[in-house]
């Protein structure tokens, strides 16, 4: 019977066979249940393992696109609609549905989706003339320079409508009034234009080899709704050697920057003529001519291209007579730079060289991110970056159009912008700046994580500075000297402190500690000295009084007398603090700090965080340190005491060395907790992302920054991903520290076992 059963169900526990009455079906069911349960439990275990991995994977997956190389795809080449025209400028609509080309014969529109030319539109003001030059302003207007000496303002608009629910875009032209700037028959080739904020525009035209004509057109709306137009024309002759090769107006339209074939950059201050003409910059030597000048979005950074293919960026230093400050030399072209197309939304721009390469650079970081070339094509004439930075269109000398799509969603982010010092527009030097949102449209987000990381470290250090001595010494006393009964009360009390929600500690820090600290700081500084002094004094008196007599404080119960001493010392030191403040610090320590050390005092500062975070960190360090100290095998202690060492000598020379890895691991875990703490730093600091170490100032930590900014960050944007990166940094920091602590603790456990 047994045998047959065992044969029937191999692998059955032997004992089952004893239950002769159970049918094999019931046994089978039990085994199935057993196996299923095993699967479920294993599954549960794996879910945990996988979720740990998932945390890392999800966060990294969100961070990854920040550092991905741009993806570029060449779409197609479109033949020109009209033959034999020279292209001057290109433009692309918002969603890359329509592009236009301005060539010597007029304007042509293409649908980038159907790859076909759209219905031709004629420019009425053109007449018999041909287009000889084009200037694009930062807004929608552009100006055509014509072969008969006129200029013609033109606006290209893309009208969006939704007939039958689907999006339709139609181009629309609006022509301004043409102006005669050169004599008839003299073509306008070099020109620049900016729109004025109040209406109207400023135009600079090269009208003779070294003469600029400046046209200032003001449009004023009067009360009747009509527009009054006034124009002024000025001529400036520049003292240049060599020819003028390029010119550009600055954004307010009060300065013209002129580049010469001998490599000079000359600024012409239109409001201070004739003396306001000065050379503000130069190429590396007179053999290298300036071939292109143009401002980026925001009008602060000037890009210069030279005849050797060099691409350079400058800031205008307003404090130093508008001298140009060289910022970056970008990856050069191998031949002269002939055109540039700035992004309308950030500091990226395309440059076009005679070598047939189109390069994308980012001005803030100085990086050159991608290069576009087509085999056999070297004579591009115009280039345009799509408004959403997602495409590039260029035209060669025959008017063929080339279209690329680009996936480069985070051009401003690289390791340098995240962790390096950068000179942002408007800054007089390189700096680490975190400033994710700003008031104006052309505001540039500054994503340096350095101030945040420093903030995290600052908060952690000041918290540990306060927490470590208290926690470690307290643990030392509790484990070595305190009576068992004292320990049974004290330890759970302090452990209970660990369970206090950090939001409460943050609130306590900000609304209770901060205002009190502002009053009591001098006393707090005095407190450690006073406490130690008082303890010493009391001990001395106590010893004297109880010499050779019964002690009224049993060993291990010192805490009973120490609590009143600490309280007394606390009160005394605050009182003394007031005295010191009024006698030595002129009655107000804050103004004293300001005059003597030149430090300002914020109400919510690093001390407040240190104190509040101390509440969170002390119990953790205390518990772990206490555990490792009291787990030291007792025979070591007994041996030392038996050899005649005092309790203190035993504790310091025997116990402490053995338990020191445990104490190290306690410090590490406390460090990890302080690094990741969010609510306390969020509430108890001013949250200003600054890089300074002053204990009297606030800071912004990585964790608090995530909590503040993530709810407002659009999904998938640069800010969103950078916040994930911040989380990743926090994760890694704590992971390393915790693993180290765990490893040390495991080693220690092994050591205790051996001992």
């Amino acid at each position: 019977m047994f045998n047959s059963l065992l044969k029937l169900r191999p692998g059955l526990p032997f004992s089952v066979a004893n239950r002769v009455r159970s049918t094999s079906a019931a046994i089978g069911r039990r085994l199935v249940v057993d196996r299923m349960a095993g699967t479920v439990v294993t599954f549960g275990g794996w879910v945990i393992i996988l979720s740990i991995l998932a945390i890392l994977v999800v966060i990294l997956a969100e961070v990854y696109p920040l550092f991905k190389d741009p993806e570029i795809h060449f779409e197609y080449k479109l033949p020109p609609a009209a033959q034999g025209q020279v292209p001057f400028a290109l433009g692309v609509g918002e969603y890359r549905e329509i592009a236009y080309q301005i060539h010597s014969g007029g304007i042509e529109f293409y649908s980038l989706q159907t790859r076909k030319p759209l219905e031709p539109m004629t420019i009425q003001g053109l007449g018999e003339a041909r287009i000889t030059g084009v200037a694009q302003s930062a807004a929608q207007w552009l100006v055509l320079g014509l072969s008969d000496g006129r200029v013609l303002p033109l606006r290209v608009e893309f009208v969006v409508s939704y007939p039958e629910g689907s999006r339709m875009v139609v181009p629309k032209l609006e022509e301004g009034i043409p102006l005669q700037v050169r004599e008839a028959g003299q073509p306008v080739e070099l020109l620049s234009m900016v729109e004025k904020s109040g209406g109207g525009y400023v135009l600079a035209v090269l009208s003779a080899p070294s003469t600029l004509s400046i046209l200032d057109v003001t449009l004023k709306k009067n009360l009747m709704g009509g527009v009054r137009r006034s124009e002024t024309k000025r001529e400036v002759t520049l003292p240049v050697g060599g020819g003028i090769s390029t010119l550009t107006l600055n954004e307010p339209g009060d300065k013209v920057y002129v580049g010469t074939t001998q490599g000079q950059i000359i600024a012409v201050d239109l409001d201070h003529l004739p003396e306001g003409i000065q050379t503000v910059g130069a190429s590396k030597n007179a053999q290298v001519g300036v071939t292109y000048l143009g401002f980026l979005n925001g009008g602060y950074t000037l890009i210069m291209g030279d005849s050797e293919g060099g691409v350079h960026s400058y800031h205008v230093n307003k404090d130093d007579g508008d001298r140009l400050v060289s910022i970056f030399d970008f990856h050069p072209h191998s031949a002269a730079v002939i055109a540039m197309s700035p992004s309308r939304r950030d500091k990226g721009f395309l440059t076009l060289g005679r070598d047939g390469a189109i390069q994308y650079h980012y001005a803030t970081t100085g990086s050159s991110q991608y290069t576009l070339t087509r085999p056999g094509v070297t004579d591009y004439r115009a280039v345009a970056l799509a408004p959403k930075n997602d495409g590039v269109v260029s035209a060669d000398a025959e008017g063929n159009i080339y279209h690329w799509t680009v996936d480069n969603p985070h051009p401003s982010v690289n390791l340098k912008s995240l962790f390096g010092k950068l000179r942002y527009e408007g800054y007089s030097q390189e700096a680490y700046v975190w400033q994710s949102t700003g008031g104006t449209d052309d505001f540039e987000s500054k994503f340096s994580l350095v101030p945040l990381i420093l903030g995290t470290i600052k908060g952690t250090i000041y918290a540990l500075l306060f927490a470590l001595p208290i926690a470690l010494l307290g643990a030392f006393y509790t484990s070595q000297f305190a009576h068992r009964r004292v320990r049974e009360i004290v330890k759970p009390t302090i452990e209970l402190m660990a369970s206090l929600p950090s939001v409460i500690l943050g609130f306590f820090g900000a609304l209770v500690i901060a205002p009190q600290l502002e009053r009591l700081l001098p006393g707090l500084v005095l407190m450690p000295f006073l406490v130690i002094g008082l303890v010493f004094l009391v001990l001395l008196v106590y010893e004297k009084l109880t010499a050779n007599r019964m002690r009224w404080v049993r060993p291990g119960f010192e805490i009973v007398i120490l609590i009143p001493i600490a309280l007394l010392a606390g009160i005394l030191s605050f009182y003394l603090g007031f005295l010191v403040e009024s006698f030595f610090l002129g009655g107000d320590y804050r103004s004293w700090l300001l005059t003597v050390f030149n430090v300002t005092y914020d109400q919510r500062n690093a001390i407040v965080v240190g104190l509040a975070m101390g509440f969170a960190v002390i119990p953790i360090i205390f518990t772990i340190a206490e555990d490792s100290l009291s787990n030291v095998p007792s025979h070591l202690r007994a041996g030392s005491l038996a050899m005649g060492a005092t309790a203190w000598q035993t504790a310091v020379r025997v116990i402490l060395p053995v338990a020191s890895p445990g104490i190290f691991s306690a410090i590490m875990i406390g460090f990890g907790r302080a690094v990741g703490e969010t609510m306390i730093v969020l509430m108890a600091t001013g949250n200003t992302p600054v890089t300074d170490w002053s204990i009297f100032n606030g800071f912004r930590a990585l964790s608090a920054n995530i909590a503040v900014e993530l709810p407002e960050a659009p999904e998938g944007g640069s800010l969103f991903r950078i916040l994930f990166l911040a989380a990743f940094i926090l994760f890694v920091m704590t992971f390393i520290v915790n693993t180290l602590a765990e490893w040390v603790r495991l080693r220690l456990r092994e050591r205790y076992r051996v001992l």
Partner: protein
Amino acid sequence: MKHPLAHQLWKRGDVFVWITGVTLAFSVIMVTMLVLCLLLNGLETFWPKTLYRFSLKEDKVALGQITGREATYIQGKAEEGTRYRVQLKQANRDVYGIDFIWVDEDQILDRKSPSQALVIERREWGDFYGFIKEVQSGGEVIARGHAEGMAALDRLLPRITGIWDRLERIEKNEIGAINYKLEKNRLKLRKLALKGINLGEQVAEIERKIAGLQEEYKNKEEGLVSLRAQLAGNLVMTTAEGTEKVIPLNQVFRVYSPNTFGIFSKLRFFGGKIVDFISQDPRESNTEGGVFPAIFGTVLMVFLMSLFATPLGVLAGFYLREYAAQGFFVSMVRIAVNNLAGVPSIVFGVFGVGFFIYFIGGSIDKMFFAESLPAPTFGTGGILWASLTMALLTVPVVIVSTEEGLASVPKGVREGSLALGATKFETTMKVVLPAVSPSILTGLILAMARAAGEVAPLMITGVVKMAPALPIDGFWPFIHLDRKFMHLGFHIFDVGFQSPNVDAARAMVFATTLLLILLVLLLNLAAIFLRNRIRRKLEVSAV
């Protein structure tokens, strides 16, 4: 060290023992002070404070409660002795503009506590402090002066409060229900339109329903108007300076005269305020009223969290101890679990945002709630995602305590069961699980305490300062896991730091803090108690 005794103390190390002891004393003092400070400040909020009428210099008067006192310094003149100023809550925000003022003590000529001074808690504009002038009803003055006025208020207020409550009920429940159904039907229409059905029987049916609901809505609105008409009646008050202020009776929430209170009425008032605080909705952008929605949100979130974390944590604990082969891999996992406990809570929040909200929530929206896009249903923060995030955060606590429990079950017990023919599953269920269940419970309680107090991950996964509706209500499917919710911890952060009137919010923050701290400490004490009982039991069984 010349002094022999001092030298001896130094050498023996007694000094150092005492110094280490003093740090411990400091920790104990710190905790005690923190808890005492929060306890006193929190309870003080509910205690009725005397209303003082101050006569100040320059013929000024002020009526208010003292809320603080501090020393003032004049620069360089500290030696002349410190002077003090007191903070008064003078209320009457709509009359004075600010409800808290500082008064220098040397400005105060005398102070009295007039028995006729009243505190009126209003539904809007905060408290009003003053004296009754008259009570009007139906356009006529029906009572003059304090005594008559109080009697009239006692008569009128219950009725008006009753009507007000009914109005609120109708607005919230009945009209709320209609709105809810309207929205559902509109979404149904969109869903059909997305499928390409714009006409036909189904559409007409829904449109009929919508029309019916709109009709119903109109009727209810009319009912409300007639009810509101019954809310007439005014209370005319004078401030300390004699300025008159008309307060509509329907704005009056509670009237009391703290200066006439004896100790028992004070206690009764105190109890009543605590009940109100726990059971009522917040008013005045969370700075007054109760915190019921926040309590509800906290409890529900913790409950959902336990629902996810317990099975997972227990399974993982059993896997690591009972099912997985012990070795390098399992100890790696154990280190990872311990590590998980040390990962900053905000990182879990970030994970929740990336994974639960945008990845899973976004996918759910695309698949099942396409009709309400682009407004997200699950693709935004909500109580489900917050609880899941929290579950992940607290699961290490459950795992560790389950493992601890399993480790303390003697091997012999298991072997005995197996030897009697039980399968592994049966052994686990009937022998091991009962033995570890107290440990699991301990872990769970600790996890709950952690979840109740943690705020940072919630801030980005679905907590709001003011949720329009509770996550559980009377509409199918009753539990709305996609809804945003309120949380006690976030309430503290929001009211204490984001509210424009910090002084007015202070009391509320302290009270909420006290509530949260009590909740967390209670849970922790329960866990400690349970753990001690297990230990004792184990000691006994080991003998």
